[in-house]
């Protein structure tokens, strides 16, 4: 027995399933990457330089030390961004220059808390040592401080970082290893 089927007029249709798959993957990718970037480098107003000589550091292994200010910034009226290049200098520098915390990756130490700097030193030393053992050379140590903070508040952190380097590396190697000051790149 045979079936005879009668088809009506064929409606053209677009199969958008793979398109949706790809778009979803892209969204997930950007969401995850955004979170990773924010964890590693919190939003700070970095120094804007006159005739910048900045460059992108090359090499393996990085320890990024962030110095976060106590007072947050208001969003810029034009761009809507809270921080970034081109923010009015007055806004950046007229705020209080106190430091709130120092961070490495997701780890944050509020500097006014007791024992925070000791913990920071131990963690920094561990991070430097781990990367040194992995790569056979000292890591790139980046100091990423907010443009508005006082030097007097950054100095103890730099001294602690130096102690951490001395703890993690041989004395000669620690003395020879520079740090990298982070600022905005030229346009």
């Amino acid at each position, binding site marked *: 027995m045979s079936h005879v089927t009668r088809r009506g007029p064929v409606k053209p249709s677009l199969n*958008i399933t793979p*398109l*949706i798959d790809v*778009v*979803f993957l*892209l*969204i997930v990718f*950007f969401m995850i*990457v*955004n979170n990773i*970037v924010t964890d590693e*480098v919190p939003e700070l107003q*970095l*120094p*804007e*330089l*006159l*005739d*910048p*000589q*900045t*460059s*992108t*550091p090359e090499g393996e292994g990085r320890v990024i030390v962030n*110095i976060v200010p106590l007072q947050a910034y208001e969003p810029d009226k034009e761009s809507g961004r809270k921080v*970034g*290049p081109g923010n009015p*200098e*007055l806004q950046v*520098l*007229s705020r209080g*220059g106190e430091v709130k915390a120092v961070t490495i990756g997701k780890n944050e130490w509020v500097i006014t808390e007791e024992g925070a700097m000791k913990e920071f030193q131990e963690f920094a030393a561990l991070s430097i040592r781990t990367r040194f053992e992995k790569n056979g050379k000292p890591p790139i140590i*980046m*100091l*990423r*401080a*907010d*443009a*508005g*903070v*006082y*030097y*007097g*508040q*950054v*100095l103890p952190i*730099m*001294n602690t*970082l*130096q102690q951490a*380097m001395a703890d993690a590396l041989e004395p000669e190697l620690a*003395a020879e290893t*520079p*740090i*990298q*000051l*982070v*600022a*905005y*790149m030229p346009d």
Partner: protein
Amino acid sequence: MAERPDNPNADAPLEEPPDEQVVHHVSQRKKRKKGVGGEEIELNLTSMIDVIFQLLIYFVITANFQIDEGTILATLPGNAAENREQQNIEPPVVIELTSGDDGITSRLIVDGRELREGVAQLRGYFEGQIGSGEMAKDDIVQIKPQGVVRWQHVVNVFNACVAAELEQVGFAPS
């Protein structure tokens, strides 16, 4: 012609449906797929795609991957002084950085001489010193900022020294 009653089955007893009219089972999935009139029900994805594209565009625009950041090599406080003692060489050139009266600007004093134009003058000053032979590029330069000077000014001074091709720039020990 015989008279036809209004309802011919009104008085007739209820009859069993004939065997040919047996209703076959239709699965729930097929029932759902077909509407009342037997038309296929389709999911309208247009609005969802609109929202997804909005999200995608948002994440693409807001992701900047921090490519606008760069670094300058620096020596931590103390290291330059230790090196100087070990090598027993001349005392370093000291750049003093003090805060202006407004707490925002800064004043720049190099080896006891104030540079009135601040950091904009610093590069030219060092290039002049090197050109006249009073300084060498490998001379040790130490930046000695006051505690209340903003980090912005400190890094700008550092940057000017690097721009003048000075090779040993560091922070003065505290």
